[in-house]
C-alpha cells in the first residue's frame, strides 16, 4: 500500500502553490476597449493645450503655476501607457491571476486624465474645483451609503435613506434658523433621522412588515410631510424658520495648505470631517469590534446569533436607529452644510443613489464610500465639462454619472452578494 496524497502528474496549472482563478475576462476586455478609445482620441485630437489649474483662488496659501499639457503628445503618452497596462492585464489572465486593484485604479486615473486633456482643449481644468465639487456631491451619498451598509449588514434593508436624508435636511434647516446655532442642528438632525429609522425598525421588526414596503412608504411619507410642512409652515414663516445659518469651513492647520489635497479635503465644514470619522469608525467597527461582529452575525444568520444569546431584534432595532442617525447627519449637508434654505424634495433622489452605492460597494463601508465618490466625481466632471463647453447636448452630459455607474457596475463590479438575512424578518418558533 502506498499513501497517495497528491500526484506529480497533475496536469493543472498552479502557480507558486496558489490556486488558479477561473478567468474573469472583464477587466482585460474593458482595458482593451479603453485603450482603443484612447488611441482614437489621440489620432483625432485637436491641436492645442489643456491647462490644469492647481489652486482655486489667489487667496490660497500655496500658489502653484498652471500646468499646460499639449494635447496630442500627452494623449499619445497616455495611450501607450494604457496599452502597456492592457497587455499586462491579458498576461495576468493567461496565467489565471487577477488584475490587482491598484492597477485598475492607476489605469482609471490615467484614462480620466486623458479624457480631461482631450475634452479641455483650449481651456483650464480647475482641479481643486473638480475634486472639491466631487467630494461635496458625494458627502450625503457617503452618509446615506453608510446608513445603508449598517442597515443591510444587520439584516434590515434600508430603502428609507432618502427619507432620513430629507428629514435631516429639514430639521437642520429649522433648528439652525431658530437657534442660529448650526452646531445644534447636527444632533437634532440625527434625532429625526433616527426616528425615521425607528419607524422602519418598528414596522419591520415588530409587525413583520416587508422591509422594502416600509422603506418605500417612509420615503413617500417623509416627502409628503416635509413638503406639507414646507408650504404650510416654512414658506409663510421663512424668516424665522427657514434661513439656516451655514456651518463655517474649518481649515485644518498645515493639512489645508497642501496643494490641491488641502483645499479639497481639509478646508471643509464639520459635517465633512465627521464623515471621514464616520467612514473610518464604521469600517473599523464592523470588522474589528464586538459591535460589528454581532451586527454582522445578526444580518447573516440571525438564528445562529440568537442561539449564542444575541438579542436579534434589539440588535437590529438599535443599529437601524443608528443608521438613521447617520443618514440624518448626512442630510444636514443639504441645508446648513451648503448654506441653502430647505425646499421641497431637495434630496432629489440622492437616497436612492446612496442605495445603489451600497450595492455597488458590496456592502462594505469603504467600497461604498468609493462608489459614492466615483458618482460625485462623474457628476462634477459633467458640470465642469458643460461649463467649459462641450459639443455634446447638455442632456447627455447630465446622463454621465448614471451611465458611468452602470458601466462600472457591469464592467468591473459584477455580482455582489447581500448579507444573507438582509430583508428577511426574524421570527422565533
Amino acid at each position, binding site marked *: 500500500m502506498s499513501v497517495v496524497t497528491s500526484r506529480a502528474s497533475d496536469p493543472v496549472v498552479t502557480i507558486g502553490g496558489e*490556486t488558479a482563478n*477561473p478567468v474573469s475576462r472583464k477587466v482585460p476586455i474593458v482595458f482593451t476597449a479603453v485603450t482603443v478609445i484612447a488611441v482614437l482620441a489621440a489620432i483625432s485630437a485637436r491641436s492645442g493645450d489643456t491647462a490644469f489649474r492647481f489652486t482655486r483662488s489667489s487667496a490660497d496659501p500655496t500658489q502653484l503655476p498652471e500646468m499646460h499639457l499639449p494635447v496630442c503628445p500627452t494623449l499619445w503618452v497616455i495611450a501607450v501607457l494604457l496599452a502597456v497596462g492592457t497587455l499586462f492585464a491579458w498576461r495576468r489572465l493567461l496565467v489565471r491571476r487577477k488584475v490587482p486593484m491598484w492597477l485598475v485604479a492607476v489605469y482609471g486615473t490615467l484614462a480620466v486624465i486623458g479624457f480631461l486633456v482631450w475634452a479641455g482643449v483650449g481651456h483650464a481644468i480647475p482641479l481643486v474645483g473638480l475634486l472639491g465639487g466631487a467630494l461635496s456631491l458625494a458627502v450625503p451619498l457617503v452618509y446615506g451609503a453608510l446608513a445603508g451598509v449598517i442597515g443591510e449588514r444587520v439584516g434590515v434593508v434600508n430603502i428609507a435613506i432618502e427619507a432620513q436624508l430629507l428629514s435631516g435636511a429639514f430639521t437642520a434647516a429649522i433648528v439652525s434658523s431658530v437657534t442660529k446655532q448650526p452646531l445644534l442642528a447636527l444632533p437634532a438632525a440625527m434625532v429625526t433621522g433616527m426616528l425615521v429609522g425607528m419607524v422602519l425598525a418598528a414596522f419591520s421588526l415588530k409587525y413583520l412588515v416587508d422591509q422594502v414596503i416600509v422603506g418605500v412608504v417612509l420615503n413617500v411619507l417623509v416627502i409628503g410631510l416635509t413638503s406639507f410642512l414646507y408650504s404650510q409652515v416654512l414658506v409663510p414663516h421663512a424668516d424665522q424658520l427657514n434661513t439656516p445659518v451655514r456651518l463655517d469651513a474649518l481649515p485644518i492647520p498645515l493639512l489645508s495648505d497642501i496643494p490641491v489635497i488641502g483645499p479639497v479635503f481639509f478646508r471643509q465644514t464639520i459635517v465633512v470631517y465627521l464623515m471621514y470619522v464616520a467612514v473610518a469608525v464604521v469600517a473599523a467597527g464592523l470588522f474589528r469590534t464586538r459591535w460589528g461582529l454581532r451586527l454582522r452575525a445578526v444580518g447573516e*444568520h440571525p438564528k445562529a446569533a440568537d442561539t*449564542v444569546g444575541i438579542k436579534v431584534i434589539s440588535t437590529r432595532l438599535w443599529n437601524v436607529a443608528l443608521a438613521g442617525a447617520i443618514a440624518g447627519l448626512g442630510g444636514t449637508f443639504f441645508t446648513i452644510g451648503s448654506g441653502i434654505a430647505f425646499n421641497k424634495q431637495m434630496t432629489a433622489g440622492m437616497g436612492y443613489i446612496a442605495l445603489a452605492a451600497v450595492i455597488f460597494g458590496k456592502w462594505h463601508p469603504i467600497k461604498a464610500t468609493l462608489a459614492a465618490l466615483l458618482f460625485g466625481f462623474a457628476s462634477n466632471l459633467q458640470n465642469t465639462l458643460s461649463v467649459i463647453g462641450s459639443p455634446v447636448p447638455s442632456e447627455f452630459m447630465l446622463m454621465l454619472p448614471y451611465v458611468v455607474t452602470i458601466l462600472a457596475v457591469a464592467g468591473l463590479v459584477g455580482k455582489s452578494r447581500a448579507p444573507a438575512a438582509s430583508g428577511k424578518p426574524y421570527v422565533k418558533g
Partner: protein
Amino acid sequence: MKLELREITKRFGALVANDRISLAVEPGEIHALLGENGAGKSTLMNVLYGLYASDSGEILLDGVPQRFTGPGDAMAAGIGMVHQHFMLVPCFTVAENVMLGHEATRFGGFLNLDAARDKVREIADRFGFDLDPDALVEDLPVGVQQRVEIIKALSRDAKVLVFDEPTAVLTPQETDELMGIMRQLRDSGAAIVFITHKLREVREVADRITVIRLGKVVGEASPTATNAELASLMVGRAVELIVHKNPPRLGEVGLAVSELTVIDHHGTHVVKNVSFEVRRGEILAIAGVQGNGQTELTEALLGLQKHVRGSIRLDGVEVSGQSVRHLLDAGVGFVPEDRNEDGLVGDFSVAENLMLDRAHGEPFVKAGSVQQRKLMEFARSKVAEFDVRTQGIDEHVKFLSGGNQQKVVIARELSRELRLLVAAQPTRGVDVGSVEFIHEQIVAARDAGVPVVVVSTELDEVSALADRIMVMYGGHIVGIVPGATSRSDLGLMMAGERMTEGAAA
C-alpha cells in the same frame, strides 16, 4: 447538573409537536433520545434551549425551575447545544464563530481574535481535532463545520449539553472521536442529551434511552436492546435493517466519466482527472470524507459546475457542457446533498416541489399551463407511496421535518423515467424506517436497469447499497473496490491510503 423536563407541551398551530413530554437526565449520564422523523425531538430540545417557548410544562435544573426567555438565558444557566441545522455564520472564520456571543475584547470593544484562536486550538487539541481557526466556515466541508459547532458548544463550559444529530455528517472515525468526547464530558459530570438515528451509536454510548413517537414519550429502552427492538419501538412496527438486494444484473455501460477535472469558484481543482464507469443495473457508491470532491463530482454530472474539463458520456453520448435542463430531460435523477438549499423550495407546497424539475413541459405543463389536477393526483399518490408525513399536499415544505423533506426529494427524482440516478447523502437525517424505504427505492431503480451513483459518508449505507465502492480523497480516486470491502479497509482508504495499486484511473 441534573436536567429535568416536566410535562412539556409545544404546539405549532393544530399540530402538537410535544405532548406532555417528561425527561430527566442525571449528571454524568448520556441520555439518548430516539424517534422517527418529525417525532418532536428537535422541538423539545429547542424548548429546553429557550429557542421556542413551550405552551406548558417546566424545565428544572438541579431541581430549580427555570424561565428561559431566549437562548441567552439557557446558556447562562449552563446549557449548551449542538444544533441539527448548523448555527454557524458562513462568512465568519472558525474563531469568530466560536467567540460570537461571548467575545473577548480589548480596549474600546475591539475583538481579541488571538484569544479566540487560542481557545479554538485549545479545545481542538483537547479532543484531538484538526482545525484552522482562521478558515472561513463556508469553505469548510460539512464534517468540519460540525466540529466547529461542537467546539462552540464546548467553549462555554456547559453543564448540560444537547447534541442534536451531530453524527449525521460525520465519517465513522469522526463519529468515534465524537463519542469519545461525549464520554469524556460525561465523566467530568456533564448531563448529555444525544439525538441520533443511528442505532449503533446509541447502543455504544448511551446510558439511558428514551423513545418519542408522534410527540409523546412511548417508552424507555436499555442500551443493551437490539437494533431491531429499538427500531420497532421508534417506528411502531418491525423494521428490516438489512436491505434485501439481489446480485446485480449488469447491463451496458450507462455512465462513463473520463479524465474529469472540476475547478471551483475559488479556482481550486476539486476533482482531479477522474475516470470511472457505471453500468446499467449497478450501484456505484462513492465513499469519502466530506470535502474530497464528491459533491463537486456529482454536481458536474448534472452540469451544475461551471468549469469542467474531460468527458461525461451517458449511454455513449457526450453530455458534458450540456445545460442542467437538458440533462434532466435526458433522464438524470439527482438528489442534492443539501436538500434545503438545492433540493427544495421551502415556500412551495409539497405538490409544487414534486414538479420542480419538470416545470417546463410534459406531463405537468401543457400549452404553458400547469395541469393542476394532474399534479394534485400525482402528489397525492407520491405522498402516499413514499409515506411523506404532512398535513396535506399544499403544506409548505419548510414546515416538514427533515426526514420528510428528504422523502419529497427522493419521491420526485425517482418518479421520472431515469437513465442515471445520482444521489448524494440520500438518507441524511432520515429515521431508520425511512432509511429502509429509501434504500429499497434506490435498489429498485438499479434493478430496473438504471446506473446509480450514491455518495455517502455513512459506511453502513455504502455497504448496504454498493455493488462497487469508489473512494475519493483530495479530489482523486483512491481506489474502486468491491461492495463487500470491510469497514476498516474503507476507513483507511478514506484517509487517503490506496488499497489496490493502479485501481485508480
